[in-house]
């Protein structure tokens, strides 16, 4: 294509090429500036919170308190992750069950599924945690002896299961009717069709949103601290903060731990997604 008169051939580039190069250059510049801005932001945060280490006394955080309690609060991460893992397992189980209910043509199963989802989505998670912790023993007395952690797991798992059921339902429906028909025509039973053909495809579809839910759940697990009996990050932070009147330091530390955990989990998630994207669909 000739656009610029009599220039020598090797200097000629099409307009599309030039525009593309410009676009790439601009995009690279933008990304670079974002990174620089992030670094400045973090630096400012550090200066703001570094207390007397640089002689700035900006927020004059109690660095001794931070040093003394960093390990104590950090230890809660184990409990936080433990609760989240147990809850996500329960949630996946419930979501699968509810999704199959939603796809079922058997009215009681369908009704049960929609009832469960509606109830869980229609009431606050905070209330549900307290329900399982405080109210359930009134119905089932022996539940009072069960550690508070299980009330949290039950509430988180059932609550997230309700939300995730919609993802699962969509994932299962996304597998075309033709896939089932092909499997049935080959002589597979309903169970085999589900296990070998539908579920593997649905799972690929459901894994990215499940990752998001898990990350959200690790943070919502902080609400379990309200029971006062589960020694995860939030419980430890509020306890130490209140006891020493160092709430700012304590909460900043808790925030730091949650944030770092989220960053790591997000990185893991994008890895998994990249691998899923590589496998041919």
């Amino acid at each position, binding site marked *: 294509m000739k656009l610029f008169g009599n220039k020598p051939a090797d200097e000629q580039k099409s307009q599309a090429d030039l525009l593309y190069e410009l676009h790439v250059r601009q995009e690279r510049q933008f990304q670079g500036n974002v990174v620089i801005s992030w670094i400045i932001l973090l630096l400012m945060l550090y200066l703001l919170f570094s207390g007397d280490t640089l002689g700035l006394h900006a927020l004059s955080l109690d660095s001794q308190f931070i040093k003394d309690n960093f390990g104590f609060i950090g230890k809660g991460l184990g409990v936080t992750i433990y609760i989240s893992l147990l809850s996500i397992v329960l949630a996946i189980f419930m979501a699968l069950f509810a999704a199959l209910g939603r796809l079922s043509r058997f009215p009681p199963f369908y009704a049960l599924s929609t009832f469960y989802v509606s109830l869980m989505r229609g009431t606050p998670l905070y209330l549900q945690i307290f329900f399982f912790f405080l109210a359930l023993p009134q119905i089932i007395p022996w539940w009072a002896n069960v550690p508070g952690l299980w009330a949290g797991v039950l509430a988180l798992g059932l609550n997230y299961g309700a939300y995730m059921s919609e993802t699962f339902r969509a994932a299962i429906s996304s597998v075309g009717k033709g896939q089932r028909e*092909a499997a049935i025509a080959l002589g597979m*039973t309903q169970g085999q069709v589900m296990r070998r053909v539908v579920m593997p495809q649905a799972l690929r579809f459901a894994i990215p949103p499940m990752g998001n839910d898990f990350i959200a759940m690790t943070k919502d697990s902080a609400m379990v601290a309200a029971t006062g009996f589960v020694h995860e990050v939030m419980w430890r932070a509020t306890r130490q903060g209140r006891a020493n009147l160092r709430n700012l330091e304590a909460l900043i530390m808790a925030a730091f731990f949650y944030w770092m955990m989220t960053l790591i989990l997000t990185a893991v998630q994008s890895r998994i997604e990249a691998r899923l994207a590589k496998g041919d669909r």
Partner: protein
Amino acid sequence: MSTAIIKLTNLRKCFGRLEVLKGINLEVQPREVVCLIGRSGSGKSTMLRCINFLEEPSEGEIEIHGLKIPAGGKGREHQKLVHHARLLTGMVFQEFNLFPHMSILENVMEAPIIVKGTDRAKAKEIAEMNLARVGMLFKKDEYPNRVSGGQKQRVAIARALAMEPLVMLFDEPTSALDPELIGEVLDVMKGLAKEGTTMLVVTHEMGFARDVADRIIVINEGELIEEGIPGKILDHPQHKQTRALLERYHTSEK
């Protein structure tokens, strides 16, 4: 017991109040290639899908290699018969329906292993043999979405063949293909016909029907209106609906 591989007796199928099949009687003999033609909505696909019970027929009887299955059956006994019928028939769909999460080899190995309990090594051998038959062995480790539509359909044929069915059912196997890819699939089907595979083919490919079919059956509004050897049906159609149908193919071919 007749010698027919497929025998349909007074087969009816209704979707609600719409009667799609109005009492079909049909026999397909061993090694016979039968092409079913008819305009869209005539019921030809539904008829094919009734044979392996992807559609439950409303009335009548389906007999596959002596196995009689009356319509409207329920319960475990009926399910067993239906399962058996599916093992005796292989089906190829318009949209291929390969399993996208499995490699081409795995697609073909899956049913023998899962359904028949064939051991892996033997299943692999069968799969490779059938992929070679359709000329797709060289792509065995690819995933379905990495091959063309024509190649997908050839794999789908191999997948059905791997179950060693007595009869192959083809539901418009080339209708979803780009024109330049139709030939390779038809060639594979011609090869199967030459090997003596019993085939029932729903198609719009009149050239294929003329070259390969032993018999052509014309279906119109849920009824078989005419049947005979290709020369008779294609060159001397008796029924005016057949003439109208063929007229449309002739005009579209030009």
